[in-house]
C-alpha cells in the first residue's frame, strides 16, 4: 500500500520463529521452585525470572517484571477457536476478533476507539483454529484504565447492529480479496484436500455465505461459551509487580464464567495417496503449496521434527531447499517449509513461487531433496549446524517485552510447563542422528503428498491417486 516498499533479500517468513503464530508453538519457560519464582539462563549472562502469579480468585498468570521502562505487555489466550465454529457459521471466531473492540460497556464504538487512543493503549484480538488470543500494551501510568477497557471488551462487548454490519462488510471485502490472492487460494485448496469435511478445512474468515448469516446473538454466544477461566492462559511482562498484577487479573478476568462450553473438535485424519490440484490463474508466476502429514506439538518426536524442518526448509539460507532451489538454480525467490501443529492434527507445509515454465523443475528438485532426506537423514555436520543455530538464536526471541510475553503465552497454550524455556536448548542438544533418521522416515512420506498450484504451470496437471504410489 505504501509507496516505498523495501526489497529485502529474502522474505523473513522463512524464519520459523517469525512466520505465524501457529509456529510460535516451538517455544518457551522455567522452573517453579518453592518461592514460585524461577531463574533460568539462556546463556551464562542472561537470567530471567518467571513468576507464577495466582490471584485471589485463582486466576494464574506468568509474569516477568521489568521496571526499566514504563510499559506493560499482557497477552492472553483462550483454548477455543475457529475449529469450533458451527458448521453453518464458519468465520464466527474471526468475526468476534474483529468486533470486540467496537464498543463495550457504556462506550459505543467510536468512544471506545477514542478512549483507546487517548490512553495510547494498544489492544488487539486474534482468532486461530484452536485458540483465541489477545494482546494489550499500555503505559504504566494508564494501566488501570487500560485493564478496564480490556475487561469491558471481554465481558461486555456491545455488538451493535451498525458496528456488526460494518465489520461484516470488511470481512466480506477481505474474503473477496483473499479469493483472488494466489497464496490464499493455494492454501485454502490445500486445507480442503488435507482435511476434507473436518473443521480445519474451512477458511478462518469463513465463506461469504456463512459470514452473511452471523448475527449479534452468534457473537454473544461465542463470547459466553469460549471466554472462561478454565481455558485461559495469561502472560505479563514489564513495569508491574506480582501484587498489582493479582488485582489486575481479578479486575480483567474475574467476571468471566468459570467454565467454557464449546463442543470438542474431532481428530483429523490425513488422507492417503498423492493429490495434485492445479487452479488456473493468468499469472506469470505460479504459487505452489505442498505438504505432508506432520506432528502435533505433543508428539514425542516433535523436537527432532523441528530440527529436521530447519534443515529442510525452515532455516532460510542454511536450509536444503533454499540452497538447491534458489542458490544453485535461481528457480525462486522464496522457498520454505514449516511445521504446523494443531490440536487434532499436524502438518508439514511448504511453498515455492516460480515462473510457470519452471514449476515442474522446482517440484522435482523439492521432491528429490525430500526423498534424499527421508532416505539418509541429515549428516552429523548438518545436525550440529542446526543445533548451533536453534540453540544460539533462542535468546533472540526474548529481547523485547512484547516478544517475551508472546513466548510465555505460547508455552502455556501448548502446555509445555514453566520449566520449558530453561530446558529447551537441552532438548535440542539431546537429539541424535538416529533420532533424525527415524523422524525423517516418519515425516517425509511423499507418497501422501498434497500439492496445490495456482497459476498456469507447464508440465503439472491435477491428479488424484487413491492408492499409494509404488
Amino acid at each position: 500500500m505504501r509507496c516505498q516498499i523495501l526489497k529485502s533479500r529474502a522474505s523473513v517468513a522463512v524464519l520459523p520463529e517469525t512466520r505465524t503464530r501457529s509456529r510460535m508453538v516451538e517455544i518457551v519457560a522455567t522452573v517453579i521452585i518453592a518461592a514460585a519464582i524461577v531463574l533460568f539462563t539462556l546463556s551464562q549472562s542472561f537470567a530471567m525470572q518467571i513468576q507464577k502469579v495466582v490471584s485471589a480468585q485463582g486466576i494464574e498468570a506468568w509474569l516477568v517484571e521489568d521496571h526499566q521502562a514504563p510499559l506493560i505487555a499482557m497477552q492472553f489466550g483462550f483454548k477455543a477457536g475457529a475449529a469450533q465454529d458451527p458448521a453453518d457459521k464458519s468465520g464466527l471466531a474471526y468475526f468476534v476478533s474483529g468486533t470486540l473492540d467496537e464498543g463495550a460497556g457504556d462506550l459505543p464504538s467510536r468512544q471506545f476507539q477514542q478512549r483507546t487512543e487517548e490512553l495510547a493503549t494498544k489492544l488487539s484480538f486474534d482468532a486461530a483454529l484452536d485458540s483465541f488470543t489477545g494482546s494489550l500494551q499500555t503505559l504504566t501510568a494508564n494501566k488501570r484504565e487500560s485493564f478496564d477497557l480490556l475487561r469491558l471488551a471481554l465481558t461486555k462487548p456491545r455488538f451493535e447492529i451498525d458496528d456488526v454490519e460494518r465489520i461484516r462488510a470488511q470481512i466480506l471485502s477481505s474474503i473477496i480479496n483473499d479469493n483472488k490472492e494466489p497464496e490464499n487460494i493455494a492454501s485454502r485448496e490445500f486445507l480442503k484436500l488435507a482435511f476434507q469435511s473436518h473443521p480445519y478445512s474451512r477458511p478462518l474468515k469463513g465463506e461469504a455465505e456463512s459470514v452473511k448469516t452471523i448475527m449479534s446473538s452468534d457473537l454473544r454466544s461465542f463470547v459466553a461459551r469460549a471466554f472462561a477461566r478454565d481455558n485461559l492462559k495469561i502472560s505479563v511482562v514489564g513495569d508491574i509487580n506480582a501484587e498489582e498484577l493479582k488485582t489486575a487479573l481479578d479486575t480483567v478476568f474475574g467476571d468471566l464464567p468459570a467454565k467454557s462450553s464449546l463442543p470438542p473438535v474431532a481428530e483429523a485424519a490425513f488422507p492417503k495417496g498423492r493429490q495434485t490440484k492445479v487452479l488456473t490463474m493468468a499469472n506469470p508466476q505460479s504459487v505452489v503449496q505442498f505438504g505432508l502429514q506432520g506432528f502435533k506439538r505433543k508428539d514425542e518426536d516433535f523436537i527432532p521434527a523441528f530440527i529436521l524442518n530447519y534443515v529442510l526448509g525452515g532455516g532460510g539460507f542454511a536450509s536444503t531447499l533454499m540452497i538447491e532451489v534458489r542458490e544453485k538454480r535461481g528457480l525462486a525467490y522464496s522457498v520454505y517449509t514449516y511445521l504446523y501443529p494443531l490440536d487434532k492434527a499436524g502438518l508439514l507445509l511448504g511453498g515455492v513461487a516460480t515462473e510457470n515454465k519452471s514449476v515442474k523443475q522446482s517440484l522435482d528438485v523439492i521432491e528429490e531433496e525430500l526423498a534424499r532426506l527421508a532416505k539418509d537423514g541429515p549428516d552429523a555436520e548438518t545436525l550440529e549446524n542446526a543445533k548451533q543455530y536453534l540453540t544460539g538464536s533462542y535468546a533472540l526471541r526474548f529481547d523485547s517485552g512484547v516478544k517475551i510475553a508472546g513466548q510465555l503465552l505460547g508455552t502455556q497454550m501448548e502446555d509445555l510447563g514453566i520449566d520449558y524455556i530453561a530446558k529447551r536448548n537441552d532438548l535440542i542438544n539431546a537429539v541424535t542422528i538416529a533420532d533424525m533418521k527415524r523422524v525423517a522416515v516418519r515425516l517425509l512420506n511423499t507418497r501422501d503428498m498434497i500439492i496445490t498450484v495456482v497459476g498456469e504451470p507447464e508440465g503439472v496437471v491435477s491428479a488424484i491417486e487413491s492408492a499409494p504410489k509404488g
Partner: protein
Amino acid sequence: MLNFDALISRKPHLISIWAAAIMMLISSPYTSSNAQGRAFHTKLANGMEVVVLPDRRAPVVTHMVWYRVGGADEPIGKSGIAHFLEHLMFKGTQKIAPGEFSKIIARNGGQDNAFTSNDVTAYFQRVSKDRLPLIMEMEADRMVNLRLDENDVTTERKVILEERRSRVDNEPLSILQEQMQAAFYLAHPYGIPVIGWEHEIEKLNRQDALGFYKKFYAPNNAILVIAGDVSPEDVMLLAEKFYGVIPANPDAAVRSRVQEPDHAAERRVVLKDSRAGKATLQRIYMAPAYPNAAPSEAEALEMLARIAGSSKTSRMYMKLVVEEKKASSASGWFSGAALDSGSIAFYAVAAGDAKLEDIEALMDGVLADVRENGVTQEELDRARNAAVADIVYMSDNQASMARTYGWALATGRTVQDVETRAERLAKVTVEDVKKAANKYLDIKRSVTGLLFPAPSQTANVARPSTPKQPGAGVH
C-alpha cells in the same frame, strides 16, 4: 472498579504519555551510562559514522551497516542494480566462500538479512553479543572485498526476476502502484521502481554490480548502528579494529539526483485487471520530507495524515466507512522518511458494489473540509498522543530502534532529529495543520490510482515470461 462516565469526559492523558516519552528520549531507560541522550554517536577517522544504542535486557545485539545509496542513485538504464548488488553482497569475498556468509551467521546462532529502498541499502545481523566481533569482521570484509563469480551473478539475476514476479507482476495492486509512482514523478528517479524494470533487470551484469559497489560502498559513505547488550566503549574498540582500518575512498560518490519540476496537472492511472479483488482507490499528493521540510511542516503533515486517515476514529474512516458505508476500509498516511520528497496519501477499498467515483467524491469532500475548516484541538491532541506513544512503544524493541536511527542518519537527518521528535510534535498547532493541508492537498500535484476488478483486454492473457523478451513484462 473505575467509573467510566468520569473517564470519558476526562481530557486525554497527555501528561503521562509525555512524561514517558520525554523520559525515553532524553535518557535511555535501559542504561544509566548515558544521561544526555539515548544514542552514543561518533565518527571514525575514515568518516564512518557509529551509533550505539545500549539495551542491556537480553544478551543479544542488532548490528546494522547502512550505505547512503539506494535505487534512486542508479545510472540511467540500470534500474534494480542497487537491489541486485545487495543480493550479490552475500556471494563471498576472498575470505568467505560463495553462499557461506549467511550459513556462518546461522552456525553462530544469528539471523541476517538486508534491504534496499530508494535512498538506503542496509545489512543487518541479530546475534548473541559474544559473536559481535565475528559479524563485524565479516561485514567489514565485504564492504571492500566482494568477489563475484559470473555464474553466481547469472543465477541470482533469475532470483531477482522471480522476486519481481512475486512482488509486482503477480499483484495487480502492486502493478498499479508501480505505474502510479512512474506517473507521479516527472523527472526524479523515485518514479523508477527499486526492484527495477524487468527489461533492465534482464541486462544487469557483473560489471554493473561491481561498478556500483566501487562507487558507493566505502566507510565514508556508511553508518554503523549497534543496538543491544553492549557499551559504547566496547563497540568503539571493535569498530576501530574492523571498520577503522578500511581507508576512506575520496572518490566515493556523493549522490546527486535530478530534481522534480513543479507539477501543473493532476494525473490519473487506471488498471482493470481480472486478477484484482475489490475495487480500490488511492490518492497520493506531493509533500516535503523530513530532511527538506520547513520547521514544523513535516510534523504538521504527519498530524494531518493521522487525523484525516490513520485510525478508526479518523475523518476518512468515519465518513467513508462508518457514515456513508461506501468503503470497507479507508486510511491515510504521511511518508516523510525519504531524502528528496515525501508524500501524503489516502486509500479506500470499495464496500459491496459501491462505485469508486462515489468514494472519490467522498474522499475529496473530507479533504476539502480539512482545507477549509482545519482540524479540532481534540483531534490534534489525540493524533499527537498516538504518535508519541508509538515512540515509547518502539523503544521496547532494539531492532526497531536500530532501524529508526539508521534510517534517519542515512537520509540526511541527525541523532538530535530523532531524539527531539516528541518535542517537535508538541509544537504543532491546529493552524499549522490547516496551513499544511491548504498547501499540500493540491490536486495538481497528485496522482490518483483506480483499480477495477473488471476484465481487461490484456489481463486475461498470460504474459510471456521468458527472459529473452525485453520489455515483455512492462505493463
